[in-house]
């Protein structure tokens, strides 16, 4: 039972909860209109407005009733009052567009005020209002204010274009606003330039028809103003650098080296975005020595981010996982910094654990095992399980250390803590699979704890062990029968394991098995609703009845090897995520469009300098946006560079590039078509809106088809079940 006490919170300006709605509104209205001529400094109005603002969020939408009264105050000669009225306007204009209209002339007037703060405030406010008249009324003034003499107003105008684009794409695209915005890149004030870039990138992200390209001269100039920008401005400029496609290895190198000092910035957004740009530019640098020297610069700043608040640590760690897959040499010697502190939040600990697993080698395995053992005694069950699992996975990853890992596991199992035993059982099963005929001596120790197991995965693991080693375990028939007694109550996962184990048992010990097998086959084929179980049951049945010898070969045959690589991303996802370092998608380590369906994808753009990894040359699943298919305003940031001499040369280049593009594009579309075909079977009813989703799902299936032995591993990040 939960007792509510009446709210006892004291507000500075009256309590929003104390009176009835109408009463409160009426009271505030009266207060707002009181004072009259005596109130010289409008202090009564100020206090009333403050109360109204305080009530805006706390008491739902009641305050909207005061809209006309608030507009009445808007023209008073006080910036403080104006700001409060504007805030109110932004909040409620969509609810009451007709009433809001009365404020429009005031805003338009204010955009011509002599005070730059007022001009900017009015422009900022009017462009927040999603009402057609307001949007239309912004177009003329914003053009004027883009050329305002005050940089503060100009930067506000730059963001205003992106806001207008959100309100009405068409109107902006048919106007010359984007061209004007482009021209503002020539501005002498760095803050204005960075704001323009942020605005352009924002527009780019919302439109399929606009492409953003930056040439070397502009890119170089942008990098040179980095030191003069605020930390946020630096992030915007770095973000925009991702639209620069190096045409030459030396250019890429030079820019990367000029950006490298940003890695020492105290703002983690600047650091991570710099890492992103440098990683990106590395794709275009030919000399492997330079690439590895740049890569070395990336790891200290990543590690330093671990002294930031936990949320930023988490981000840094997730990105470390990503970067480590792309550039294994980064972070190689830093495993100890990822050891968990007792007080780390769980999301940090689990991610550190993953990194520890990735960074473990033959050389440091002893230290790591001691550390993981320590984790296995902690309180958080989820974390302990992960630690135990990691020990087992290390046994599989590093063959020479398998014995050491197994000893550690058995040690942990001896403590008889149920969830540790279960987790250990699962990984020991995998160790048996990986190294047949090496560690079977420990079967006895594992079987000992059979009564502790109550989770399906652990049960399935122990049943697999019983079946696989039926001839070595003396009482295997008894153990199996114990489980079969409750066959119908088990989950499908356990039932499947039982079926296979029974068949294996029969093959190895035919005399004892012959009563069991028919019984289990009958259950699986006639008394189940699960199609997988039934299919597998029939398969065994027919196999055993047609050719027992062949059955033995199939059932007890050699198994495909398993590996322990965790969460290996496929190269296409890896490439995409590396172009998105520091963004939300890197937290999930999933393809951007899977998490954010409307996001525009980034791909490595082709240029003569692009260094292609070898394996990609074979399965070139590249997609390049076709410049010809983007008809409207190609945002050419190069506009502000006086590079007439260069313009001829890129023309040829462009032709070559578009030829290449159209080739790859056609490859892309064929593949897409193939994918689509598969997709309709799965998801025939889905309309156009679901297209992206479908595409992704099919993509996964495609992988399944080509690499069956990897499918389970890639999807779950865990080891294969039999």
């Amino acid at each position, binding site marked *: 039972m939960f007792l509510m006490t009446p709210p006892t919170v004291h507000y500075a300006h009256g309590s929003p909860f104390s009176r009835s709605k109408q009463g409160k509104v009426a009271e505030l209205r009266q207060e707002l209109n009181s004072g009259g001529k005596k109130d010289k400094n409008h202090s009564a109005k100020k206090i009333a407005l403050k109360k109204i603002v*305080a009530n805006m969020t706390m008491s739902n939408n009641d305050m909207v009733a005061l809209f006309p009264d608030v507009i009445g105050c808007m023209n008073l000669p006080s910036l403080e009052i104006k700001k409060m009225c504007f805030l109110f306007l932004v909040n409620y204009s969509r609810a009451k567009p007709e009433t809001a209209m009365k404020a429009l002339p005031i805003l338009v007037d204010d955009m011509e005020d002599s005070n730059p*703060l007022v001009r900017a405030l009015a422009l900022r406010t009017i462009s927040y209002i999603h009402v057609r008249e307001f949007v239309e009324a912004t177009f003329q003034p914003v053009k004027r204010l883009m050329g305002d003499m005050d*940089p503060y107003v100009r930067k506000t105008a730059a963001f205003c274009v992106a806001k207008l684009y959100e309100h009405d794409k068409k109107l902006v695209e048919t106007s010359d606003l984007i061209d004007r915005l482009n021209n503002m890149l020539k501005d002498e004030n760095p803050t204005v330039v960075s704001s323009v870039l942020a605005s352009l990138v924002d527009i780019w992200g919302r439109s399929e028809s606009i492409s953003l390209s930056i040439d070397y001269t502009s890119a170089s100039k942008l990098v040179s103003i980095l030191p003069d920008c605020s930390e946020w401005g630096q992030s915007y400029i770095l973000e925009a650098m991702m639209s620069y496609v190096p045409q030459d290895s030396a250019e890429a190198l030079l820019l990367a080296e000029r950006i490298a000092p940003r890695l*020492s910035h105290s703002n983690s957004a600047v650091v991570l975005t710099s890492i992103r740009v440098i990683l990106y530019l590395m794709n275009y640098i030919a000399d492997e020595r330079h690439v590895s020297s740049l890569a070395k610069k990336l790891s200290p700043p990543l590690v330093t981010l671990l002294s930031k608040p936990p949320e930023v640590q988490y981000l840094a760690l997730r990105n470390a996982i990503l970067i480590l897959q792309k550039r294994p040499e980064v972070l190689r010697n830093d495993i100890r*910094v990822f050891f968990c502190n007792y007080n780390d939040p769980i999301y940090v600990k689990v991610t550190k654990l993953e990194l520890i697993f990735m960074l473990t080698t033959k050389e440091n395995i002893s230290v790591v095992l001691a550390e993981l053992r320590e984790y296995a005694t902690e309180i958080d069950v989820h974390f302990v399980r992960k630690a135990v699992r990691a020990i087992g996975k290390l046994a599989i990853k590093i063959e020479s250390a398998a014995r050491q890992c197994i000893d550690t596991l058995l040690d942990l199992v001896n403590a008889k803590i149920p969830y540790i035993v279960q987790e250990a059982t699962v990984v020991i099963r995998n160790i048996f699979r990986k190294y047949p005929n090496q560690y079977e001596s420990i079967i006895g120790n594992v079987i000992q704890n059979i009564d502790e197991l109550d989770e399906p995965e652990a049960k399935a693991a122990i049943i697999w062990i019983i079946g696989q080693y039926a001839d070595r375990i003396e009482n295997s028939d008894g153990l199996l029968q114990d489980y079969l007694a409750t066959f119908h109550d088990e989950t499908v996962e356990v039932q499947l394991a039982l079926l296979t184990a029974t068949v294996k048992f029969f093959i190895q010990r035919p005399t004892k098995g012959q009563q069991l097998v028919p019984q289990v086959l009958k259950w699986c084929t006639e008394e189940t609703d699960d199609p997988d179980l039934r299919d597998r049951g029939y398969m065994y049945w027919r196999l055993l009845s047609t050719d027992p010898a062949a059955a033995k070969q199939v059932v007890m045959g050699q198994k495909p090897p398993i590996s322990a690589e965790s969460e290996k991303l496929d190269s296409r996802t890896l490439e995409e995520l590396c172009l998105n370092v520091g963004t*939300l998608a890197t937290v999930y380590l999933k393809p951007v469009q899977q998490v954010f369906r409307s996001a525009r994808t980034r791909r490595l753009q082709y240029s003569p300098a692009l260094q292609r990894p070898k394996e990609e040359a074979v399965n070139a699943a590249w997609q390049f946006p076709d410049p010809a298919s983007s008809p409207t305003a190609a945002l050419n940031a190069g506009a502000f560079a006086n590079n007439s001499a260069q313009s001829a040369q890129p023309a040829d280049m462009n032709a070559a590039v578009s030829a290449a593009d159209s080739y790859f594009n056609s490859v892309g579309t064929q593949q897409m078509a193939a994918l689509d075909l598969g997709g309709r079977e799965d998801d025939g009813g889905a309309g156009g809106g679901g297209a992206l989703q479908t595409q992704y799902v099919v993509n996964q299936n495609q992988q399944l088809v080509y690499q069956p032995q990897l499918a389970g591993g890639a999807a779950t990040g865990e080891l294969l079940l039999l």
Partner: protein
Amino acid sequence: MLSGILIFNQKGENLIFRAFRSDCRPRLADIFRIQVISNPQVRSPILTLGSTTFSHVKHENIYLVAVTKSNANAALVFEFLYRLVVLGKSYFGKLDEEAVKNNFVLIYELLDEILDYGYPQNTETDTLKMYITTEGVKSAIANSATDSSRITMQATGALSWRRADVKYRKNEAFVDVIEDVNLLMSATGTVLRADVNGQIIMRAYLSGTPECKFGLNDRLLLDSGDSSTSSSTPGNRDGTMKATRAAAGSVTLEDCQFHQCVKLGRFDADRIISFVPPDGEFELMRYRATENVNLPFKVHPIVREVGTTKVEYSVAIKANYSSKLFATNVVIRIPTPLNTAKTTERTSQGRAKYEPEHNNIVWKIARFSGGSEFVLTAEATLTSMTHQKAWSRPPLSLSFSLLMFTSSGLLVRYLKVFEKSNYSSVKWVRYMTRAGSYEIRF
């Protein structure tokens, strides 16, 4: 970028709701309340539902939440939320539920100024205080147009963190070198991890636009003579450093991060820290050192579980620094099992007390001079439990502060101030080492 900023109290009441884009609907407040605040399962600071992502930090008794709609720059989102906390503290003393409720208008005004269309703008406290004011923070500048252009220049200029008209009768600068030393020692006494997170805080009370140059006993800097060729290829750097290790008295900084006033290009090129400081207090730099860390305290715990009813402790702690120095507020937390009924403790110095709410024996030593060694012996009597679960033995932890000592060995070699008017200035430096996460397993 950001679609909206929301602030909630612990009960889940939405105190502040500011949308910057029309895709930030009011009902998102309810979704956050249900999915995060009242959901004990949530363990991540980031939650994506459909196309909406909530990123939150908890501070005091409030949640600060950023709503984003696409694949936003997550680092920027969290940096911004933390900046909001800093701004709140600087405006209201502290940022908690009460402060938010007392300052609705000002917080909305700040949000409107520091975010435009969800993109962070100038967030420098000094500049903002010139034109966003409260009863507590008064600005001398009126609302006239000329004054306003001064503000706008400041807010968009290259030195956005400093006003030009600062004047002091006495020009002074204080430098605090504060090191958090982290230690993780295994039960067998091997050092699993020892490193230093240092920060250098400066309080600059300097007139005009001073150019400062700051020098440390940084190895790379001292070695710059012979490593000028190798510094461009970091591959060789490690080798060079190890070879010259004999040249004592210098420190290898693993990595540095600087306040935005520091000219990073210069540091990268010739390791010179040069900057025009903001007025007043700011964090000049952070650094990390992992080599040759001096551990101020050696702790030797012996913990014996006697059957299931008793745990015996004997903890010895020795100060590993010069006898001229002394540490203050040394606190040693010694974990006890959850089913501890009572404890007895004896110490050769300081006081020890059992804190049942934290399952700790807390041993406090107010003043710990260098070279000395103290011992605690204790016994915890356990109640018998029906369900006997092994005790997880969390690590023993230390906190302390030690003046005039740096674990990394870092020293400030000089701080030079250059200004047009050529005034003389007084510079002070202070060193302190604190315990970061100083943990000893047993």
